[in-house]
């Protein structure tokens, strides 16, 4: 992979386009009113080319992609033209669409949790995708499934294949989704935020995989992402969308070097920068002893009593019951962690290493196998054991805010987002209906959503919009502890920057403690006081953010930092080379 990034677009410029989107416009009907989601978008994609579709959250990226597959809901009105190798896809015959879908176009959906059928195993679902377009025996398909699953970096393909979606972590699901999408060697891969739930090491692996596919199969990729590092790493050309309009279209190098449009500039400007990495000469394999921070660096540290941390986790073990008793999954293995009041602790680590599980354990949402979890002095383990909905636990939860990893599934499909955001308010405050509405509007504005969205249902929103709803709900009550599981994974950098700003300001105002689970090291660096690194359910390193991110001790942490992409095509190419050397 030494091809430079401006070359492919030149090399393929002479070929006829594989995918041509011309004057695409999509409008949704929302309660009798039309809402134009995409305006007159035109772009082309050639074989072997990677086109990144970037832009603000809610700008119509996913809608554009779905339009190509003819998978928009019936409330959508699509005009314009989308051709695949010359064949019109808008309003095409079901037969043609069927053959295109999954066969010539593979799709990675934005939210893997809801996109996978809960009642079938991952293996079944991937095998089905294979067998739909190819005549292969069941056994051969099963073998290919295992192969694909390990190709996407899943360590235990056997278990993952047998698992049902709810038994896997967000990143594992996302990789299963990717395996499914590439299973039939498509001509075109639509990858809608394919790596949002992946830690940077795994993400790097996936990006390598995609690059490899492109090289081997001359596959084109329509990459939708907000991660400018990923864009820099993979894309040949970039299309920038904003509010449904195409604002800029340029080869990647040119875009990063010399963005034309003001919005693009703002976007690039908002990309958080990773600190300069100082790789230690000899990385010690020994994990650091988890130690309570000697002096919490938070501005509110003075008000917090040091001997009464907001969260005290000791030797936490969480096991999930397997289908059989010997198949139990030990997701968290002897983790100890303290979060002082007003402190932001970031939890980073490999996908599937138990980050979300720890978050859930803090809220008393998973049964704890061993160890203790105390939140603001209350033993969650005991409270949770007594009854999942015990009064004590409920009081505790009133002071907790949680952003779940997958916002789509954490919102009730039958309730408007206004109602969902108002839920904690009506549960724990005695605000009148009007006051509640006002507060909801305030919160919506705080997360950069227009007020009119209040009456939308979750399915009528984009992934990033839903994620912001989840954030709004979590901070509605000014919690004492915020557990945020990848809260900005679906947000474009500009919105992310504003959300992070919001976080900071709210945190400064109320001084809540925060467990911040993220794979975006730059964000972690901006926000966290301390960082804890998780690997295979064990805590491998823990310390002040500045130390861990700049001078990591554990090799895994080093690998992690080395894998983080930067939003600069040229530098990213160097980093990639460096990382590959490190791995070798």
């Amino acid at each position: 992979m030494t091809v430079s990034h401006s070359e492919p677009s030149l090399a393929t410029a002479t070929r006829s386009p594989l995918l041509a989107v011309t004057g695409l416009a999509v409008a949704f009907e929302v309660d009798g009113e039309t809402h134009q989601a995409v305006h007159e978008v035109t772009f082309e994609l050639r074989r072997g080319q990677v086109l990144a579709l970037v832009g603000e959250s809610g700008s119509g990226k996913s809608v554009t992609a779905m339009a190509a597959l003819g998978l928009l809901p019936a409330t959508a009105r699509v005009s314009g033209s989308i051709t695949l190798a010359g064949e019109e896809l808008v309003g095409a015959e079901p037969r043609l669409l069927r053959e295109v879908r999954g066969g010539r176009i593979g799709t990675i959906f934005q939210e893997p949790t809801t996109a996978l059928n809960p009642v079938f195993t991952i293996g079944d679902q991937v095998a089905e995708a294979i067998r739909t377009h190819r005549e292969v025996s069941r056994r051969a398909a099963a073998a290919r499934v295992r192969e694909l699953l390990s190709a996407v970096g899943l360590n235990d393909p056997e278990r993952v294949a047998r698992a049902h979606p709810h038994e896997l972590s967000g990143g594992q699901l996302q990789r299963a989704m990717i395996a499914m999408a590439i299973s039939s060697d498509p001509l075109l891969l639509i990858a809608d935020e394919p790596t949002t739930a992946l830690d940077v090491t795994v993400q790097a692996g996936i990006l390598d995989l995609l690059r490899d596919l492109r090289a081997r199969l001359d596959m084109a990729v329509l990459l939708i992402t907000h991660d400018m590092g990923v864009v820099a790493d993979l894309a040949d050309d970039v299309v920038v969308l904003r509010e449904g309009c195409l604002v800029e279209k340029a080869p990647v190098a040119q875009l990063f070097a010399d963005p034309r449009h003001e919005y693009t500039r703002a976007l690039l400007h908002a990309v958080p920068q990773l600190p300069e990495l100082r790789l230690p000469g000899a990385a010690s394999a020994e994990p650091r002893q988890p130690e309570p921070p000697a002096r919490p660096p938070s501005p509110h540290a003075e008000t917090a009593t040091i001997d009464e941390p907001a969260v005290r986790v000791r030797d936490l073990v969480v096991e999930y019951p397997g289908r059989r008793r010997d198949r139990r999954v030990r997701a968290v293995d002897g983790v100890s962690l303290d979060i002082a009041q007003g402190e932001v602790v970031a939890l980073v680590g490999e996908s599937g290493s138990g980050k979300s599980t720890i978050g859930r354990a803090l809220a008393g949402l998973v049964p704890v196998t061993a160890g203790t979890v105390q939140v603001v002095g209350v033993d969650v383990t005991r409270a949770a054991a007594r009854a999942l909905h015990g009064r004590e636990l409920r009081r505790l939860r009133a002071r907790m805010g949680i952003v779940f990893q997958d916002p789509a599934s954490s919102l009730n499909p039958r309730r408007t987002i206004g109602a969902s955001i108002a839920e904690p308010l009506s549960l724990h405050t005695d605000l009148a209906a009007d006051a509640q509405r006002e507060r909801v509007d305030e919160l919506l504005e705080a997360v950069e959503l227009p007020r009119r969205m209040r009456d939308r249902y979750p399915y009528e929103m984009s992934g990033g919009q839903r994620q912001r709803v989840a954030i709004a709900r979590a901070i509605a009550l000014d919690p004492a502890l915020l557990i945020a599981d990848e809260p900005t994974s679906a947000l474009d950098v500009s919105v992310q920057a504003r959300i992070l700003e919001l976080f900071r300001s709210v945190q400064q105002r109320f001084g809540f403690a925060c467990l911040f689970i993220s794979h975006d090291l730059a964000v972690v660096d901006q926000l966290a006081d301390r960082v804890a690194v998780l690997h295979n359910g064990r805590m491998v390193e823990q310390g002040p953010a500045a130390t861990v991110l700049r001078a990591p001790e554990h090799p895994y942490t080093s690998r992690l930092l080395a894998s983080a992409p930067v939003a600069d095509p040229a530098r990213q190419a160097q980093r990639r080379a460096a990382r590959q050397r490190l791995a070798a």
Partner: protein
Amino acid sequence: MSTDTQLAPPAPARPKKSRNSWRRLLADRWAVAGAVVVAFFLLVAVAAPLLCAIAGQDPYTYDLDALTEAGAPIGFGGGISAEHWFGVEPMTGRDLFAIVVHGARTSLLVGVGATAVSVFLGVLIGLTAGFYGGWYDRAVSRVIDVLLGFPWLIFVIALGAIVPTSLPKPLLLVGVLAIFGWTSIARIVRSQTLVLKRRTFVVASAAVGAGPWHLLTRQLLPNLSATIIVYATIQIPSMIGAEAALSFLGVGVPPPTPAWGRSIGDAVSWVQTDPMFLVFPGAALFLVTLAFNLFGDGLRDAFDPRTRGLNR
């Protein structure tokens, strides 16, 4: 309301969500038609004496002159005439119009009442059983097993003999029907709750400190509404039919109080000789059922915001 909210700009009277649902419902022609028919029958039930007064008939008076000697109605369509709009009942000569109109009272009261009570009980019990699980669920499941396995036929016979004649029959009926009727809806609701309660949005709601009641009513129930509405609308005719069966066992409203179920039961054997005897009460029951179902479907769609966006 506090005083300062008075000064606030007037908020829309209703939260928009319900307005949306209503608008969706009103936009559904079939649902509206269903609602209109249901309303029509309710009106007929309420105004039964008046209607009969207009027709100059009552459901109790025999008119043997309208019958042949063998007891079959004389004339076209089961004795349809200016006097007897729907003809007459064979063997008695009672006015069928009056019987159908008055029958609406009993049948709608019992059918809708028993359905409402049994669905309420079933949903409450099924929802809580599925949600809480554990010993409570096991206990509920066993109670359901007992009720389902219980020989209700002989129970009802015994009951018919024990209850004093003075007890208001419709109440008794609704009670008996509800006691034996809640079990199936409870099991259905329970089965779906088992899955629903593990959905992330329910967990998310619990995580913000929602109590069981809130989870049950705000998170689970809306997602069960489709099943509940559909099941409830199917239940109504069964209840009306069961009312007839019970009245034969001495627990229902005793004859000659008109009831559709009984009229239909009586009419079955006349289906060849006097089909109109079956057609009128049968059509009434069919129409009401259809109307409830159409309305129920509309309601279901209105409550499910996503349905309209189904792709093809």
